[in-house]
């Protein structure tokens, strides 16, 4: 499966997860919607919209959980007639990410969940420590970062 990452340390754990869980698509993103890695997507527009929707869905579930249960709901599972998705956060030394996994009848929610636990452990082990000084994310940086990440993911030159 075609895997592209912005952060190189993500690639091996994500590849293992996608292979073991037999996922059709996978996306690792920052909670703001910035893409970190993608597996199985062929168009950058799909990645952009999937990232935006996944980030929104995660934020919505978190807020709903806080309102009805006092704690953010962590994982989400939606089942369609042919495909299902599993959305869950991943904690690493680089901060929290969200992982969106799309799978079909080749896999199951149970399989995706057990291999997702391994992905969380692998990413936590592989993540390099956060640099001491972190630039604030402002609107201009966000767009620049987004374009740079998409360029890296789809192999085109970004000025």
């Amino acid at each position: 499966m075609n895997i592209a990452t912005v952060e190189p340390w993500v690639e091996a754990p994500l590849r293992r997860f996608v292979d073991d869980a037999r996922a059709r698509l996978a996306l690792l993103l920052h909670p703001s919607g910035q893409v970190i890695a993608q597996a199985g997507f062929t168009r950058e527009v799909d990645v952009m919209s999937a990232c935006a929707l996944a980030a929104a869905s995660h934020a919505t579930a978190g807020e709903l959980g806080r309102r009805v249960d006092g704690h953010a709901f962590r994982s989400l599972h939606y089942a369609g007639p042919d495909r299902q998705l599993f959305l869950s956060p991943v904690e690493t030394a680089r901060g929290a990410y969200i992982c969106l996994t799309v799978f079909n009848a080749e896999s199951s929610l149970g399989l995706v969940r057990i291999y997702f636990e391994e992905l969380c452990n692998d990413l936590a082990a592989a993540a390099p420590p956060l640099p001491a000084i972190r630039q604030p994310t402002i609107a201009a940086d966000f767009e620049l970062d987004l374009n740079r990440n998409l360029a890296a993911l789809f192999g085109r030159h970004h000025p």
Partner: protein
Amino acid sequence: MSPFTSMLESLTRQRGVRASLIVSENDGLIVDSNLRFGQDGDRIAALAASMYRKARLSAGAARLGAVSFLQLDAERGRICAVGGRSDLVIVVVADPAANVGLIRVELFRALESLE
């Protein structure tokens, strides 16, 4: 206590049985389980359900009919599974030296009560 509790207790009472579970075949999730200490129920459920599903589809593709009993023997244990008309699969994890004949009888008895 679920409707499956006594059935699972009866399966786990068999000599050499480490765990018994009722698993959803499609989701690979535990419906109910009776586990001895040290057994990872979620992992067993997901993998056993996947294995049973693949076996059922393979048997269908080979025109062999429905799968009645599935057994996997490994170095450090064995997995036995039976499924019926519903989505539910009954799974037993046992020691390599456990009596499979008895486990099989108990599994079919459990399946009858499930259906």
